[in-house]
């Protein structure tokens, strides 16, 4: 059974004149690493808000169609029940932080779950370390830089170790090396613990390599859905305005120049470099 499944999901905000997502039918399987992308305003954040019940419980408005997440029907579950299964890192980290210290923010969700003190201490320290904010754990979240706040938001979700982690544009505030380290950690959790990861991103340079499933949205609808190599290599994705990773672009351009390269479309610099090495050696 799919861990997230929607059928003809259509949602209109209370003040909206038209649906922000329309007829969305997708299936996400347990253990997948899914990348959701598409033009600004196409409905990515709105869809994420459905995954943890913020829509319809907090935003209200009109939700039609079916959605089940981790076997639960969203419309029948309060948000705090969903929070046990789905951790959402907001696009704007500041909206997510409220405690007096970084440490308290990260511990908040665990306290609510009634996790024993000892275990809580361990998990909070683990999450603080992974996200590189252990040294600033006693600072107030509103006295942090944008990227530091983003890290606190990510640490809070990681500490919970939910079955599904949803990150809405995490790289926008993170420095590139920091982002890379954090993605490595998340990727590791994804593979070892089979935590399902849903990542919303415009910038695919840092993230395309991890994905085994891509969903491209356009104007509230699902435009493309499937294998990352196929989709990122396709003309359609480029026309929708998806930022195709540069190694993939270089591959496409060289192919037009009739350079003979292997048939697997590369998604990362490493893959493209290896492919070019072959081509250069064979010359």
């Amino acid at each position, binding site marked *: 059974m799919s861990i997230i499944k929607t059928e003809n999901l259509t949602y209109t*905000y209370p*003040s*909206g004149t038209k649906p922000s997502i329309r007829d969305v039918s997708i299936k996400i399987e347990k253990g997948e690493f899914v990348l959701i992308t*598409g*033009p*600004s*305003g196409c409905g*990515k*954040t709105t869809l994420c808000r459905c995954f943890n019940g913020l829509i319809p419980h907090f935003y209200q408005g009109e939700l039609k169609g079916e959605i089940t997440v981790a076997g639960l029907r969203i419309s029948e579950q309060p948000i705090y029940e969903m929070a046990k299964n789905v951790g959402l890192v907001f*696009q*704007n980290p*500041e*909206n997510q932080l409220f405690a007096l210290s970084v440490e308290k923010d990260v511990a908040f969700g665990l306290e609510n779950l009634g996790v024993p003190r000892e275990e809580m201490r361990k998990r909070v320290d683990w999450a603080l370390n992974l996200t590189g904010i252990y040294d600033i754990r006693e*600072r*107030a979240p509103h*006295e*942090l*830089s*944008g*990227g*530091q706040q*983003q*890290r606190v938001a990510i640490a809070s979700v990681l500490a919970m170790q939910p079955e599904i982690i949803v990150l*809405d*544009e995490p790289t*926008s*505030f*993170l*420095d*590139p*090396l*920091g*982002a*890379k380290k954090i993605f490595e950690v998340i990727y590791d959790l994804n593979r070892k613990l089979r935590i399902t990861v849903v990542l919303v991103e*415009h*910038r695919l*340079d*840092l993230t395309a390599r991890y994905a085994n499933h891509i969903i491209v949205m356009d104007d509230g609808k699902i435009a493309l859905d499937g294998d990352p190599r196929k989709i990122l290599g396709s003309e359609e994705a480029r026309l929708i*305005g*998806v*930022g195709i*990773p*540069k*190694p993939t*672009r*270089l591959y496409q*351009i*060289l192919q037009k*120049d009739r*350079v003979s390269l292997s048939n697997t479309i590369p998604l*990362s*610099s*490493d893959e*493209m*470099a290896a492919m*070019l*090495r072959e*081509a*250069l050696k064979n*010359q």
Partner: protein
Amino acid sequence: MIEAKNVYFTYPNDVEALKGVSLTIKNGEFVAIMGENGAGKTTLVKHFNGLLKPTTGTVHIDGVNTTKVSVATLARNVGFVFQNPDHQLFSETVEEEIAFALKNFGFKEKIIKRRLTWALNLLDLTKYRKTSPFMLSGGERKRVALASVLAWNPKILMLDEPTIGQDYRQKEKLLQFILQMKAQRKTVIIVTHDVEFVAECSPRILLMRKGRIVADGEARKVLTNPEILTQASIVPPQITQIFLQLSDFQLPKEVIDVYKAREKLLNLLEAKAK
């Protein structure tokens, strides 16, 4: 011209965010400030529009010491777009948000109309004229914040993370706009983590780490120097990463864009075929 001399800045909570920053940015320059989270980038640019004043050291904008003038006076020449658009937006409609500064600066009704239409169009916001900025997506809100500053055409533009929430097309338009500003000899300073965007616009780059500037130079040089980038918690552009990995072939190291990459690779393949 922006001149910072030995600027130190300490926040009320005793965090020393700037530790001796000195730099000069000339009129008409396009500069990208990059570096690790918490390095002091936002703190630094807030000194350029007088929002923050140095604890010690000085900042001069066009020869005027920022401690000697009000933020309002500076604001006429220095347009600032915040990292987080929610710190900036307050109006009930997108249209009012963009018109606000124009009205404040006393532009004539006719000019306000023209600039408003221009900005709405540039940032793809025309259909949201009458919408509340708070009913928009993250990327759309960032574009409203950008529009409200670009509309009054300030002499110096400072954009903290302008590409947040922007898809490839919007970034392309932003880039074209920045190049246009450069042609008009306006100063543009961006703060960004978006390495691929920077590789495409090729500005002068300032790298920051722990309150200091650790590198200053043209994009092609800075972005192809992995040691220096690592210090500032940045990874090279993807094209550069490919060329670094192929350094045992007869290829140049300083390549940051796809078209240069294509040219160099085709040259090498051709030479080998002979």
